């Protein structure tokens, strides 16, 4: 899993809370949409029919997050990573590793979706082990994007209401 692919995992790592319909007043949603495309967010996330299924789907994120929490997720993403958005690193017996979003695990096996959007299942008897990653899935964009750019992205994400 390369760095960019987990870029926005933390955004969807926000808790599924009923959000008040308040959006960043100063953000430009159209510019935010362009930024989401140009900064590689969709290498991990999916919005509508576009983007990766590896990370959390953002198609209705505007219904589930306040602008404040969207902004917090971009600036300090490790503050809130939902358990269902955790990643897992599986160490195979040949020494290689497979990373992906954790889908399930039990005493005998672990399931994930990998960077190629493949649903994969490993028997614990056939691997060296696995590690669940609870932090560090998304870098902070503080200092990498301007305050205005972040507001633009927040405005765009806040406008995403799903397909209703």
């Amino acid at each position: 899993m390369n760095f960019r692919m987990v870029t926005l995992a933390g955004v969807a790592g926000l808790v599924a809370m009923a959000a008040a319909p308040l959006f960043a007043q100063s953000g430009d949603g159209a510019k935010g949409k362009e930024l989401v495309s140009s900064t590689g967010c969709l290498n991990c996330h999916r919005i509508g029919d576009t983007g990766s299924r590896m990370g959390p789907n953002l198609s209705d994120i505007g219904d589930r997050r306040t602008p404040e929490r969207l902004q917090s997720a971009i600036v300090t993403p490790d503050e809130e990573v939902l358990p269902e958005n955790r990643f897992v690193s599986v160490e195979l017996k040949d020494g290689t590793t497979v990373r992906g979003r954790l889908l399930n695990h039990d005493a005998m096996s672990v399931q994930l979706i990998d960077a190629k959007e493949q649903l994969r299942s490993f028997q614990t008897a056939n691997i060296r082990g696995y590690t669940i990653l609870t932090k560090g899935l998304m870098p902070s964009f503080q200092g990498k994007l301007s305050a205005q750019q972040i507001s633009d992205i927040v405005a765009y994400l806040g406008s995403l209401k799903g397909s209703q």
Partner: protein
Amino acid sequence: MNVKRVCGVCRDAATYSFGFPHNNQQIRNFGMHLRKLTARALMPLVMAAASLPAQVTYDRILNASQEPQNWLTYGGGYSSMRYSMLTQLNRNNARDLKLKWVWHPKYLEKMEATPIVVNGVLYTVQNSEAVAMDAATGRIFWTFRYAVPPESNQYVMVVKGLAISGDSLFWATYDGHLISIDAKTGIANWNKVVVDWHKGYQLNVAPLVVKDKVILGPATNEEGSNCWVAAYDVKTGKEIWRFYTAPMSADEAISKTWAGESWKHGGSPIWVTGSYDPETNTTFWGTGNPNAGWNGDNRAGDNLYSDCVVALDADTGKLKWHYQFTPHDEFDWDSVQVPVLADIQWKGQPRKVMLWANRNGFFYVLDRTTGQFLLGKAFVKQNWNVGFDEAGRPIKSPALNPKPMGGPYVEPGTQGGTNWYSPSFSPHTGLFYVSTWDNYGAPSGKGDIQVWKEGGKYSGNAPRRPAAAAGGRGGRGGGGGRGPAVAYRTEEEGYGAVRAIDPQTGEKKWDFKMVDYTESGVLTTASDLLFSGGKEGNFFALDARNGQLLWNTNLGGTVAGGPITYEVNGRQYVAVAADSALYGFALPD
């Protein structure tokens, strides 16, 4: 059929652990005899079973270990060790186990019943029907239906199992009936109301038959109805004795352990089967939490006999001794675990003990003849107890005593370090095995105490918060429930395990870890196999010596009952419930 010769092996070892062979040579001898027994005699025995004048006498239950082809009580015998002498299945061939049959009742509740098996016939119960089936094929001989009114169900319509005496089965129904059923025909002998569910009672315990009495008690699901253990005549259902587990009058000495008149609604339910020691004619029962369960502000004192083990004379119900695991409980730590009776070496001397892994997170060893506290040691992460005094009374952490309002974080959480799940003790390994929840803590709600109303909740718990306010998960008080969904949980956030404990020290010997918690009972055998399962749906066989996984199958639903083993026509079976179905396994033909 040379039953005496076979049984003689056990009788030679009768001074140790209820007559189980305890060395390898005795076990090998026993296995050889058993194979002869099964080859020559079991088939005609099964065929002749219908003509036996009395299927299961007191003497047979007393010597249950000598007929390991059967499973005669909830705990596999009066000692409740859930330890079988059968050895056809062993560490080398367990990997070859195959599914032989499945039985689906018409009800979808999680099946918690432990079946009993007598001469090739398996009896079990679920919701509103009890059945007799061919233990080798799962084919039904008869079904007895008793429609339990759904409105009597305050929680989950679970039944822990049946008991048998003579030719009669006993079913304690959720709505308070005790029913005697003819084991050959499935027709009721009698049907007595022993508690009124409208008054906040339920029956879900598997009864225990001792001599001519069937012993059980009611539960109250946080409704403040004072409970008891009672014995009923196996022939008529007439009540013979009753021992109240909470006071019934202010004149009783134990009412002084409840402030004011709080004793009137003290609860202290019975919902898991007890054990019996024939040498002292004592029956042992664990009792549940006091009411209101999460707020003890109005019931200052120890609140006897909540969260205790009570040792009762089996003929009279008179109390011999008690030990209270959690005085003045405010965390819902029912002590309704199964008392496991073992004869072990203790500090170099033989001692008759009781082994008990409690919901409060501590493993106890008690002298079962006196109730003397011998050992108390945490077997999971805990934060409520800072030690014991010389008498074995727990010293509570001042951070949690008195319990603050709201939702203080407590370890273990409400479901406990273990719960009602039957443990096992193997005299061969000398280890105690228990289904465990570790690294498990949660906010323990504490809210206002409701005004008691007959048949209503009386819990003192904090209101359940909506999912959104609890951070996406429903929860009480401070929120949180049982942590992240199991699919994403880390070991630090809690896990289930089958844990082997050395009774001599209380120390863990090994773990078989699961991701999810487990509600499964544990079964061990003389060939050092251990069977158990969990909420993940796995049912597995382990090496009882070290916890190594030998075999596993995914049954697709919670394994919550206690696995059993038995033998029919020379073939050893293992039966286990998962979700609402019962499965039978054996080696291939």
